[in-house]
C-alpha cells in the first residue's frame, strides 16, 4: 500500500498557523482549536515547494513530507 507523502500529527500541533500561512492550498486550521487540517495529503507539483517550506517552518515538527521517489534514475 502506498503511503501518503504528507502527514500531519495533530497531537504535536500547537496551532501556530505557519503551515496555513505558508501553503494555504495544502493546509488549513481547525476553527475550534487552530490545529492543522490537511487539505491535500498528496499535493500537486505546483504546491509541493510551499508544502516543503511549511514543513521547515512548523514550530512543533508536526508535519512531515516524504517527497515522491523521482522517476527514472
Amino acid at each position, binding site marked *: 500500500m502506498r503511503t501518503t507523502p504528507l502527514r500531519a500529527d495533530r497531537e504535536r500541533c500547537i496551532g501556530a498557523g505557519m503551515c496555513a500561512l*505558508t501553503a494555504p492550498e495544502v493546509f488549513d486550521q481547525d476553527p475550534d*482549536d487552530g490545529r492543522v487540517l490537511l487539505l491535500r495529503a498528496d499535493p500537486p507539483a505546483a504546491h509541493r515547494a510551499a508544502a516543503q517550506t511549511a514543513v521547515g517552518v512548523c514550530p512543533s515538527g508536526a508535519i512531515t513530507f516524504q517527497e515522491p521517489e523521482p522517476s527514472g534514475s
Partner: protein
Amino acid sequence: MNESLHTVTALPAARPADRPFDPPAELLDARRHGPISRYTHPGGRPGWLITGYDLVRSVLADPRFSSRRELMNVVDFELPPAPPGEFLLMDDPQHRRYRKPLAGRFTVRRMRLLAERIEQITAECLDAMEQTGPPADLVTAFAKPIPTIVICELLGVPYEDRGSFQEQIDTFMGGETSEEELMAAYTATQEYLAELVAAKRANPTDDVLSELTGTDLTDEELKGISLILLAAGFDTTANMLSLGTFALLRNPEQMAALRADPALTDGAVEELLRYLSVAKTFMRTALEDVELGGRTIEAGTTVVLSYHTANRDPERFADPDVLDLRRQDAGGHLAFSHGIHQCLGQQLARVEMRVAFRALVDRFPTLRLAVPAEEVRLRPETADIYGVKSLPVTWDKGES
C-alpha cells in the same frame, strides 16, 4: 575545543548610538567565536549564551529544555512557579491546557478577517496625526494606539480603561523602573484584570475573554492569560511599528521600494521582524545533561537564547546586517520564537504590521525624522522588548 571557548560575563546594557538596530557588539563578537559561549547570569550562576541560529532553533524545539520559571537557575534564591494562566513560563502538559483553547481564536483565517477593522483603526490614527501635525510623535500617534485598540477590542477591555492600562504595561515593559514601581504596576494590573474577568463572567460580551469564561478555566487562570495576551499583544507590535518605521527612514531606498510596490508589504514585515527582533532573548533550563554544539549543558543549567544575533547569523542569512525587504528567506526568522511556545498572536501581529506600515507609507510620501537620528531615544537593553521611546517625525503638509 575548550581553548576556543568564549566567555561573556554580562549582557551589555546599551547599544552603540550609531548602530541602534544591531544587536550589541559584545553579542555579535560572541557569535563570531562560535554559536555557544560560557555565560554568568546576573545573579552569579554559571550558564550558557547561545547566539547562533541553528543552536537557538534546536534548543527551542527540544523538550529537554524547560520554560518553567521555578527551574530558572539564574539567581541564588528559588523563583516561584508561574501564576495560573501565565503559560509562557510553563511546559507541557500545563502549557498546552492553556494554549489549546486560545489557538483557535488566533488562526490565520480569523486574523485576516480583522484586517478591515484594523485598516479603519489605522486610518483614524493617521487622520488625527495629519490634523494635528506636522510634527508628530509616531509612537503615541501611531505605533502604540493601533495594537492597543486592536487587542483591547479582541479581548473585550472597555475603551475607557485603556489609558491607565497602557501606562501600567509601559511601566513593566520599559526596563527602566525600580523593583517597587514594577511591583506596583504589576499589582494594579492584576487587580484590574481580576475585576474585568469577574465582569465578563457576569455579563459576557462578544470577545475572546468572555468566550473563555465558557471553558473550564478558573478566574485566576483567566487573569493570568489576559495579562499575557495584553502585555504580549501590544508592546511587541507597538515597538515593531515604531522601530520598524525608524529603520525604514534610515534606509530610504528600502522605504521607497516599499512605497512603490504594495506586493512587497508581506515580505517587508518578515524582513523587519528578522532585522529588528525586538523580543531579544529568552531562557531555557536543561532538564538533563544535553550535548549542544560540542559542549555539555548540565542538567539544571539555564541557557540564554539570543534571538537577535540568531536572526543576524551569516550562516543562515546572506548579508544579515543589511535590511533587504526583497529577501526571499526572511520568513525563516526566529522573531516569534520556535517550538511549542512560538508566538500565539503572530498571525494578528502580521496583519497589524502589514496594514499599518502600508497605510503609513501611502499616507505620508515625505515622512522623515524631525530630529537628527542620533537624538531618537531608545529603550535600554534591560527592557524585555527593544524599541524607541519616541519617534519625532515630520512631513510636507498638504501633500496627501
